[in-house]
């Protein structure tokens, strides 16, 4: 970088106006991390380099101007919208970075009920879009736990997935077109079409780029009919995870598409369902939805599959329906979590991976066994599968530990990173993917090369081509 911190701020004020350039220290501190270093932040400790400023973007043109300025002077830029990232993707790894915030670009630009798609600026909260389209009897079909907080730009940038993915797919199946700005200020628009065969699908250069290639300014997503009156909630206890995975596989391979297909191990199950789940059992959860005939047939088909498994027992679907209604995370739960962590020193972390049906149970068992053997102070280790495909599923490891005998800054190095290492090692050993839907961020980049293998060449080449000066979110996806 050829500019001083003061010169960066001065340049940004000239571009964006002083009102849109925030330099208050507490804002810079909070903008230097995301939920990956939440424990440090809760204790008022900030170990990452502070950015020079947060720029509240007001237009695509302003974003282009800021990126052009940063590119010219070699200033690192961290794009963000809803700030719900969990893997360090929003950390400012380089001193005097620019945090480019798109949350002010919050207009829903169009809702097309005939072509069944909605166009939004990057800072539209998913909840706001969902609320709006539900008034029209429609849904985005996208419902991550972060729905009340996350914005369309960030969800697209991290290859988000929602709780109803088995029916509606991940964000990559929903985004039909978009607008993105590249480091040299070039604004690219990908038009909204159902499908095309005009070379590689360039949407996928943008979707999941985690701010390491470009800034997403606008997204168009598909819409679907919203038919909750037809929902059928199903739940079954199952004796082992291995048998549970077999049931999930059979449901998927048989061609059923419930919107929710989940399997919780005994530990994670006890955390959520202790009010009805017998100790030591796992639990399968399904939600059949869609037109009445489809929902009913899906539920009946799943019921038939499970009925043939003596190791499964049906539970009242109202348990599942009640639980599901309280699953999402809004500001209230974030505030409660903060108090709980500060008072108890106990923190919940997650690591999500994916693998084929033949490998997933081995990955799950090996990782849990190693975490229990190698990591101290664990208070819970478990997990669930929550997104299934015809060829495999994900595993969402869910774990808690007490942070003891180290300062807040030691939490990541003593606990979280070693656990991530175990899970990534076991996943790679099983031939799986080390991240399913949170993004690589900076937390899991030590394993990026192993994850990509020979295809790392393509990733590196893409980074060099679109971001030759390396100003986009340094240390994210590509190891620093």
């Amino acid at each position, binding site marked *: 970088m050829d500019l001083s911190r003061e010169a960066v701020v001065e340049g940004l004020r000239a571009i964006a*106006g002083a*009102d849109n350039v925030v330099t208050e220290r507490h804002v810079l501190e909070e903008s230097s991390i995301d939920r990956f270093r939440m424990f440090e932040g809760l204790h008022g400790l900030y170990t990452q380099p502070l950015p020079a400023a947060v720029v509240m973007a007001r237009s695509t043109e302003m974003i282009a101007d800021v990126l052009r300025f940063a590119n010219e002077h070699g200033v690192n830029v961290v794009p963000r919208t809803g700030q719900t990232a969990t893997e360090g993707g929003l950390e400012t790894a380089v001193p005097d970075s620019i945090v480019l915030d798109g949350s002010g670009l919050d207009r829903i630009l169009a809702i097309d009920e005939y072509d069944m798609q909605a166009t939004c600026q990057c800072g539209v909260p998913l909840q706001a879009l969902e609320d709006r389209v539900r008034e029209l009897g429609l849904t985005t079909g996208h419902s991550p736990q972060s729905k009340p907080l996350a914005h369309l730009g960030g969800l697209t940038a991290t290859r988000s997935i929602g709780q109803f993915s088995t029916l509606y797919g991940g964000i990559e199946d929903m985004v039909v077109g978009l607008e993105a700005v590249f480091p040299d200020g070039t604004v690219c628009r990908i038009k909204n079409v159902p499908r095309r065969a005009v070379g590689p699908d360039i949407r996928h250069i943008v979707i999941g780029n985690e701010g390491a290639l470009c800034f997403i300014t606008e997204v168009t997503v598909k819409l679907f009919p919203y038919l909750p009156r037809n929902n059928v909630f199903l739940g079954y206890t199952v004796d082992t995870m291995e048998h549970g995975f077999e049931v999930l596989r059979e449901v998927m391979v048989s061609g059923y598409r419930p919107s929710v297909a989940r399997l919780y191990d005994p530990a994670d199950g*006890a955390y*959520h*369902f*202790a*009010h*009805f789940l017998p*100790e030591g059992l796992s639990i399968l959860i399904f939600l059949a939805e869609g037109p009445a005939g489809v929902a009913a047939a899906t539920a009946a088909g799943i019921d038939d599959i499970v009925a043939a498994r003596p190791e499964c027992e049906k539970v*009242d679907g*109202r*348990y599942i*329906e*009640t*639980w599901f*209604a*309280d699953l999402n995370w809004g500001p209230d739960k974030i505030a409660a979590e903060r*108090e*709980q962590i500060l*008072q*108890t*020193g*106990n923190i919940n972390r997650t690591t999500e991976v994916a693998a084929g049906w033949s490998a997933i149970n081995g990955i799950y068992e090996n990782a849990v066994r190693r975490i*229990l053997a190698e990591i101290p*102070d*664990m*208070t*819970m*280790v478990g997990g669930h599968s929550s997104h299934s495909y015809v060829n495999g599923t994900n595993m969402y490891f869910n774990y*808690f*530990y*007490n942070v003891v005998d180290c300062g807040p800054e030691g939490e990541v190095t003593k606990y979280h990173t070693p656990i991530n290492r175990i899970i990534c090692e076991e996943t790679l050993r099983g031939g799986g993917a080390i991240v399913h839907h949170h993004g690589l961020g900076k937390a899991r980049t030590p394993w990026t090369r192993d994850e990509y293998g020979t295809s790392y060449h393509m990733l590196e080449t893409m980074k060099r081509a679109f971001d030759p000066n390396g100003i986009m979110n340094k240390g994210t996806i590509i190891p620093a």
Partner: protein
Amino acid sequence: MRILVCCKVTPDFEALRESEWAAGAGSESEARVETRFTPRVLNCFDEAALETALRLSDQLAARGEEAALAALSVGGQETEPFLATLRALGFERTVRVSPGADLDFRPAATAALIAAAARYLGGGELILLGDRAGPGDGGTVPFRVAEELGRPCLSRVTDVEAPADGRLRVGWTADDGLRRATISRPCILAVGNAVVAHLRVPTLGDRLVVRHHVTEVLSPADLGVDLETAAAAGTCSLMGLDPVDRSRQAELIVGDTSRDRARAVYDAYVRKALEET
């Protein structure tokens, strides 16, 4: 010091949807909120009482004194996972009174069972409990227990310290603010909005150590309590439910610059508030 903490496992009322509350708002004979399918949690005030006991135990241990911790709950099988957690945290004895009947809105019967169980457990020099539990709770149980046992009771307790003189330094919320009192044992403290409200979490290793320990389960008959007779001293009924109006008004502050928006807020609200004061 022998410390007995009474705790109750309740439905997680926060997890109930508005429609589920509305469905319970029937006539006198029908009014009842369906909570069968709702996850269970420790009553938050009891949770604070449990952590208060553990902190007292830590204080005593730091100067070489011992605390014997016992936990008591009146409830069904759903209470067991919570009692197992308490054992892992250092509660040497966990007792569950299985009433075999619905005790909702029957505080006198609940208090009679708690008092009888406390006597069964040797009284306890300090009895801690939450000063109320969940929506609809009248908050009378601590005082009824105190009356049954003939002990002094202080409610709305926020924190407790155990100085070396054997007495207790207790913080509590009075109508006019926070107060501190020095109290002799034996006594009953009903914990309200505590300074530390969350219960610490045992490690899996802690759980392993006590995995073979079990809850002592007692019936009302074991304690010599006739529920119907006890309940006659105080029973309430759910007459109906009215939703609390949580609607708020909002006004969008607009302006081209921060200065313009700040000016709009000042003109619309701050100036008026200043004039009124």
